[in-house]
């Protein structure tokens, strides 16, 4: 039986470095301060909220830790940039990158690049997702469709899409078409196969229940399989969007007159490292924003789905 008063444990909480955390040590080192009625002993070990395995932490702490991490990243970057000395033009400080970004925005180039790149992504990735949903749901729903399409997809998806770039340039010229084609080819196979998995995950019993309620195959496809797959489809779109941007960058590096990646190459040519950094941050911001938007869409349109309750 331990006769440690509760205060000792709070002391542990406040000064973890001075007070021993092990309960038995506490018993031997801390003498009971009052000789009167001994406080009830304790069993088990109290845990700190922050260090508990899978413990819940307050929202404010969660946001604070996140902000701390980002500030740490910026701080580290600043320190690194200011200690570069003569090579300092190779690594601008965050402030320099920010002002370079502002300049780019004021010149109107940033807006033009954003809309050029954005348009390519929207068209290319839109086509890719559309194909992915149609083929994926078919593969996931009909064994015959799976038998026909899956071997083709399995074969084609191992061709690195980037290796097709020269071919696309040869076939489609250097305008928008090859860039969009590259985005489609670089993402469509992942979309098809992942959407197929999502459609396959629709419980057999749900389909059986629909049949016994008098639904035909088309009704089930449209009113059961598709709605059940919807949150999963959004997740697939979210995950593969990163690959779409990768393809866009490859396309713009090779041949483009405008676009974010084209601007990065151009800045490199003029040794504007600060502009390059500004553009990298723009890429990161676009990724973050589109991810949050797709999550919000999922939460809004499929609140019943498992993954929708936490963000």
């Amino acid at each position, binding site marked *: 039986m331990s006769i440690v008063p509760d205060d000792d444990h709070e002391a542990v909480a406040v000064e973890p470095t001075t007070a021993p955390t092990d309960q038995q040590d506490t018993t031997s080192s801390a003498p009971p301060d009052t000789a009167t009625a001994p406080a009830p002993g304790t069993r088990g070990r109290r845990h700190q909220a922050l260090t508990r395995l899978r413990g819940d932490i307050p929202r404010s702490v969660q946001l604070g830790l996140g902000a701390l991490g980002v500030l740490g990243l910026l701080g580290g970057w600043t320190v690194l940039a200011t200690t570069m000395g003569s090579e300092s033009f190779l690594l601008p400080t965050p402030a320099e990158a920010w002002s370079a970004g502002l300049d780019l925005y004021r010149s109107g180039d940033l807006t033009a690049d954003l809309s050029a790149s954005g348009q390519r992504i929207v068209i290319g990735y839109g086509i890719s997702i559309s194909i992915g949903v149609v083929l994926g749901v078919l593969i996931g729903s009909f064994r015959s469709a799976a038998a026909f399409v899956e071997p083709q997809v399995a074969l084609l998806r191992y061709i690195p899409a980037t290796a097709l770039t020269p071919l696309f340039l040869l076939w489609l010229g250097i305008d928008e078409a090859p860039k969009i084609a590259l985005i489609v080819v670089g993402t469509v196979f992942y979309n098809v196969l992942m959407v197929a998995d999502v459609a396959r995950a629709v*419980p057999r*019993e*749900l389909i*059986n*229940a*629909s*049949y*016994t*309620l*008098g*639904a*035909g195959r088309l*009704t089930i496809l449209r*009113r*059961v399989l598709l*709605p*059940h797959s*919807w949150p999963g489809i959004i997740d697939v779109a979210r995950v593969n969007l990163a690959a779409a941007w990768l393809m866009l960058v490859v396309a713009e590096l090779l041949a483009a007159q405008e676009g974010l990646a084209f601007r990065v190459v151009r800045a490199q040519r003029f040794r504007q490292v600060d502009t390059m950094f500004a553009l990298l941050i723009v890429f990161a911001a676009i990724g973050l924003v589109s991810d949050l938007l797709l999550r919000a869409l999922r939460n809004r349109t*499929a*609140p*019943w*789905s498992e993954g929708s309750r936490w963000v």
Partner: protein
Amino acid sequence: MGVISVDAVTKSFPVGRRVEPLVALDGVDMHVDAGELVSIVGVSGCGKTTLLNIVGGLETATTGEVRIDGDIVVGPGPDRGMVFQSYSLFPWKSVTRNIAFGLECARWPKARRRERIDELLGITGLTEFARHRPDQLSGGMRQRVAIARALAPEPDVLLLDEPFGSLDAQTKRAMQDFLLSVRALTNATVLLVTHDVSEAIYLSQRVYVMAARPGRVLEEVAVPFGTVRGPGVLRDARFLDLRDEIEDLLHGVSRRRAQLQGDAGPGTDVDPIAGTQRTGDVGGQRFR
């Protein structure tokens, strides 16, 4: 209407080359009259769910056939409503929309549809929860929605596959009484699959006892209680005798082994497989 007749139904699954196919059902005969509530009890693996799926048209018999009112079953249809253990509700649809699904498939006019939904919400006591989604309901409520959804298109037959299997004991009792009260309001024939012997006796007019490997009907037992059931039935001596009798049938093989070892006392020399040499004829009247 809603007469179910199962005629020499056999179902076997191929296991692999040079391996004998697995016989899930071996020449099963059953008959359920219109408006009757009949249960199938059996240990797991006796093919009772497979049989129910064949009646529902979700699986096909290897040989033999199932007829509903004389028509051969070739596939699923809204004349045979089904309820599954796992509820199988549409998780994105509200209670109302779940119940409406079958009515929409059958193209009921909107006004009639609303009327029917309101009626079913009233019967199931879910009026206040009409707009809730399944994930916002308790297990018992979900199963009531599933029953309402199956009943909505006015089926001739209601097929229940372990409907209360995943509910706690108290909810289960309440749901059994709910099923009896619903039955009084519709005249659908009900075929219930369960592994709970008490549930089978409490709810049904007749019980088919099935055995495994191969799945077959061991015995058909009539339940000597009227259509009005209640807690009194559970304490009735005949209920307890009948339950013991069916339990003995289900666990016949192990009981027989105990008998061989001389553990069983007199009066229990039951040969469950043949279902003959019995000393005390208890509970229900025997059909075969």
